């Protein structure tokens, strides 16, 4: 089947990007050196085409937000009622009835609707899941394939975006806050552990935005560096670090579950309460390799509390060693051994993130 293309596809090709199949989309893996792209984001600013993401608007059939909010309070384990003003956003998970993660999303409260940004790999599942539960509510669930999405990330990202576009309001946004300007939505969110923005704009505007940012010194960054940036920041990747068989409590996402008010019956709540009471058997945590070598997904982790498995692993350019996320027995802590190509290598269990506020979090 032909891969789907974003409005920026031709620009990626003309920049010489190595393109890959990512969840059925043709996306840039790297434009040149993946490690240099990683460092560019940590040091200054980079931009990512993330137009493959699934964007879903949820609004009341007759205008307004009330029914949409009621639906999302049932669908998302975090509580969108905590978004007390338009422009506020939160991160959360959609759960199935067993408490397994259907997807992880950012939900934005906008003036006349909620906007949910979900993964590309889960598109069909999430759309059918939302539509199924929406049947009980007077809401419209509408995918927005007309919108492109560009992330601008790094310590200089906001400043360079404002200089390139004139959208000075972006500089005043708090973390997890968004503004709308005509057909654009500009949010202070991201997936790199750096300050930055995610811009949702009509596909027809994407190429001009990309080119203006490039002229303003923002470097194009591929999915290779995107993965090492998010891993260093301790951010989960859906389908790797979590899926429908793992709960938020087993995925280092307990903090995204809004337990109060008690009467809010979000999907998966009963299963999650039971797991919380009994204590989950496994947890998702971090690992740093203390020798040369690269930990990769699927490798075994031996700990004093039993064996686990690496769910994401890579060489971390900002840390100079390999780090990983791993699902291990709940009691695991301290030293571990990872089998790298048949050879046991020493590693340390660490709480992610590995990188925060411009610095490493461990020695």
């Amino acid at each position, binding site marked *: 089947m032909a891969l789907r293309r974003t409005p920026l596809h031709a620009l990626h090709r003309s920049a010489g990007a190595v393109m890959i199949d990512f969840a059925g989309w043709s996306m840039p893996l790297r434009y040149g050196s993946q490690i240099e792209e990683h460092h560019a984001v940590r040091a200054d600013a980079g931009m990512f085409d993330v137009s493959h993401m699934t964007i879903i608007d949820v609004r009341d059939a007759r205008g307004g937000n009330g029914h949409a909010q009621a639906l999302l309070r049932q669908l998302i384990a975090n509580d969108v009622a905590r978004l007390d003003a338009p422009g506020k956003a939160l991160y959360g998970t959609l759960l199935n009835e067993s408490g397994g993660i259907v997807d992880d999303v950012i939900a934005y409260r906008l003036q006349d609707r909620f906007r949910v940004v979900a993964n590309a790999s889960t598109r069909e599942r999430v759309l059918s899941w939302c539509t199924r539960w929406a049947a009980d509510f007077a809401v419209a669930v509408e995918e927005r394939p007309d919108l492109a999405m560009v992330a601008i990330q790094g310590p200089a990202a906001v400043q360079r975006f404002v200089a390139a576009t004139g959208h000075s309001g972006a500089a005043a946004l708090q973390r997890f806050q968004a503004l709308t300007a005509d057909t654009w939505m500009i949010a202070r969110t991201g997936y790199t552990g750096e300050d930055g923005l995610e811009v949702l704009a009509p596909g027809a505007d994407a190429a001009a935005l990309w080119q203006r940012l490039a002229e303003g010194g923002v470097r194009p960054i591929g999915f290779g560096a995107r993965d090492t940036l998010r891993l260093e920041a301790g951010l989960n990747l859906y389908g790797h670090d979590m899926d429908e068989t793992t709960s938020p409590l087993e995925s280092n996402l307990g903090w995204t579950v809004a337990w109060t008010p008690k009467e809010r019956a979000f999907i998966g709540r009963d299963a999650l309460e039971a797991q919380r009471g009994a204590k989950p058997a496994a947890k998702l945590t971090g690992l740093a390799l203390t020798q040369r070598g*690269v930990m990769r997904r699927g490798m075994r982790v031996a700990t004093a509390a039993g064996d686990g498995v690496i769910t994401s692993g890579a060489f971390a350019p900002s840390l100079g060693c390999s780090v990983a996320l791993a699902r291990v027995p709940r009691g695991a802590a301290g030293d571990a051994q990872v089998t790298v190509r048949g050879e046991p290598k020493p590693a340390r269990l660490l709480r992610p993130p590995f990188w925060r506020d411009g610095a490493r979090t461990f020695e």
Partner: protein
Amino acid sequence: MNELPGELAYAPTHEWARLDDDGRVVVGISDYAQEQLGDVVYVELPELDQDVAAAEESAVVESVKAASDIYAPVSGTVVALNDALADAPELVNEDPYGRGWFFAIEPSDPSQLEDLLDASAYSEHCESAAQDDGGDEDA
């Protein structure tokens, strides 16, 4: 693809071999190989004085993409290592035919070099490999 050095011999597994005047065979990986691997982050070299056999695993390259075995192009004894790769693995990407060399072998049977590909045969080999990958369209 960039011009391939004509004086080198190439293995289908993307190593190059250069017979020096002193009879040693210097080994590295091709520009095509480093481009496919992406940034190299570690190189695990064989031991000095280790015996290696043609087409057998003798080193490992860890790149941002994957770990890859490096096969000795000829049999013999390892007589030199490129120690610079320990601190600067990026040399493999930046200068694959020069400062990014891996190790040198004292060959036990120099005629094995004749079993390798010359530049034009190796170039064809890479082109057909690229096509098997779906060409450069979304490969």
